[in-house]
């Protein structure tokens, strides 16, 4: 007897009868709000399988129903896919399965069989599933004008557990039953930092979000509320730092210029010891620093971090030369930026770094990409290393001295 290899056959479930879960038909030419308002419970899988699936009754008895999280995730993935690819009219299941980014954290792993099974339950006005061709097809004449500003449709999410934040489509699936008033999804953007964003079709306000019965610990904020709280945090932090230190009382230092962290005692000593043996510069502020130690790395992935940059530099150095060890003194990087300033021990290290990126031509494809191999079709720009010189270099060291 044929049993699909991906389906769990250990728990034998009784077949309870045929259920007519009709797929959105061609008559659904308009996206009706009511569609997304209907009770999500009606979409919960039962122990039966729709008639569209090409399995005989004996096989059906062996299939364990898929969990609701999987079904919600599949529904969300397809909504987001058809929004991202607005020109595409249909997509094959095999293509969807190959998109690893879609399926992060989603269990069971997608297969043609379990996707077919899931799609027999998913009823969505945006698309329908053609069982004979294994294609998910965008419903005709469904037009979703995105005329509401993005600012009003984006939601900041802190999930529990925090690790869900990097599995944006699983997270979108889990939130689906709470956000049904505002669906369909337009996009979901994950980060490895414990927070993510979902973009909805409809406008949301904070009072509506606060009333949603989300699980304990989850935080949902509108873009407006999120920005407001971030600004408050920054003001509070600035206030506390100013209050505690007279050194930071110079309020003329606006935020972007005041971004460089101070050197630790050890770093200061190391910088001084190097400066004794190298070319140094002194200006009117009695600023003592070694020239040509700073390099700027451009076009990093915006969600990368210091340790990834460190690993990336080590890898690039190892491919460039065996004679010079990669020993950055400090990696000056702020979250969400695509540039980092690297302080090197000697000018030779800085020069090697610049040459390495010039000759090797690398692209950082993801936040944790420590090799930065070029990928076919990747639209990311090449990583560039450049030397920081002149007034900018002086200002940097002056800032550190302060």
């Amino acid at each position, binding site marked *: 007897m044929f049993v699909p290899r991906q389906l769990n056959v250990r728990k034998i479930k009784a077949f309870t009868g045929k259920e007519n879960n009709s797929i959105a038909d061609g008559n659904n030419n308009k996206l009706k709000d009511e569609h997304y308002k209907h009770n999500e419970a009606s979409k919960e899988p039962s122990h039966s399988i729709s008639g569209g699936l090409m399995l005989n009754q004996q096989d059906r008895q062996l299939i364990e129903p898929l969990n609701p999280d999987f079904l919600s995730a599949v529904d969300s993935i397809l909504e987001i896919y058809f929004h991202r690819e607005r020109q595409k009219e249909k997509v094959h299941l095999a293509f969807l399965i190959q998109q690893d980014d879609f399926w992060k954290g989603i269990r069971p792993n997608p297969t043609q069989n379990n996707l077919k099974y899931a799609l027999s339950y998913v009823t969505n006005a945006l698309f329908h599933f053609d069982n004979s061709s294994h294609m998910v097809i965008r419903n005709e004449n469904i037009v979703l004008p995105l005329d509401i500003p993005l600012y009003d449709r984006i939601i900041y999410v802190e999930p*529990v*557990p925090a690790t869900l934040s990097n599995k944006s489509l699983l997270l979108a699936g889990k939130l689906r039953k709470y956000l049904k008033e505002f669906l369909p999804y337009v996009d979901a953007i994950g980060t490895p930092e414990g*927070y993510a964003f979902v973009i909805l079709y409809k406008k949301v306000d904070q009072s509506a979000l606060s009333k949603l019965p989300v699980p*304990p*610990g989850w935080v949902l904020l509108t873009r407006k509320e999120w920005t407001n*709280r*971030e600004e408050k945090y920054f003001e509070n*932090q600035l206030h*506390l730092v100013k209050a505690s230190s007279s050194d930071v009382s110079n309020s003329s230092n606006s935020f972007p210029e005041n971004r460089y962290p101070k050197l630790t005692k050890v770093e200061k000593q190391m910088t001084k010891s190097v400066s004794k043996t190298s070319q140094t510069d002194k200006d009117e502020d009695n600023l003592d620093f070694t020239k040509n130690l700073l390099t700027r790395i451009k076009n990093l992935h915006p969600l990368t971090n210091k340790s990834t940059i460190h690993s990336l530099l080590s890898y690039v150095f190892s491919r460039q030369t065996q004679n010079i060890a990669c020993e950055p003194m400090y990696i000056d990087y*702020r979250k969400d930026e695509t540039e980092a300033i690297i302080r090197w021990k000697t000018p030779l290290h800085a020069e090697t770094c610049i040459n390495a990126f010039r000759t090797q031509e690398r692209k950082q494809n993801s936040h944790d990409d420590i090799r930065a191999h070029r990928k076919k079709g990747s639209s990311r720009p090449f990583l560039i290393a450049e030397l920081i010189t002149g007034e900018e270099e002086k200002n940097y060291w002056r800032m550190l001295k302060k």
Partner: protein
Amino acid sequence: MSNFQHGNYHSYYSMRGGTSIIDPRLKCLPDSLFYEASVLDIGCNNGTVSAQIASIFGASFVLGLDIDHVLIQKARKHLEFVSSRIGPVRNPGSIVEDQFNYYPISSIKKFSRIPVQLQPPLNKQNFPHNIEFETADFLRWESKRKFKIILALSVSKWVHLNNHDEGIIKFFGKISSLLETNGVLILEPQGWDSYLKAAKKISVFNQTPENLKIQPDAFEHLLNQAGLVLEYSIEPQVNNSEYKNFAKRTMYIYKKKGIGIIKLLTST
């Protein structure tokens, strides 16, 4: 320390729903239990529970103790993180639950945590300055003070497996000696099946359960001998499926009556 033989799992709380939710075990306890009390948290891991007791539950002083120095480092960072996230306190003197995660994680990641020494007191009990963390093996640690409440949440198994029957007797005896009169011990012991699982998983404990004569069922007797009396127990919250393994074990609340007679300590 690499094989976590002391239960010093480095992702213990992130595996169990994250650190941003109030620990369901604390929610089961009477509201005023920790208020203005001095608390010792044995095996504090990354300080999640300690920080919540010191902030929301209004303890006057909390000491988090763990055998793993890496976890203590994490706990100090976590305290900075938690206190940085607390929003503007509307009711002076107390931190309400909705203020606990007020500032988004993104702002902490973007602008960095606020060092504890720069933070003003966020509640009447001086949080975050009313909490300390220390690396120590509880059985070999010398305390300078006594405590009103001692927490031993999911640590008894590890003390027992690592130090055998003598160790667990000493453990309870020491707890009794560190409690003030009428002080409270909150004990969440693991069951015997959990011992067997650990023995299977961690090679150094393969033979240990066979050599143990005392089983968790006998803890009450041992604690009575150490001068602690069972006040009541709290059964697991079966509906709390979202908390995974939390709130699946019974918690026992013991009280120290009068002057504890630590017979067992003297006999060993």
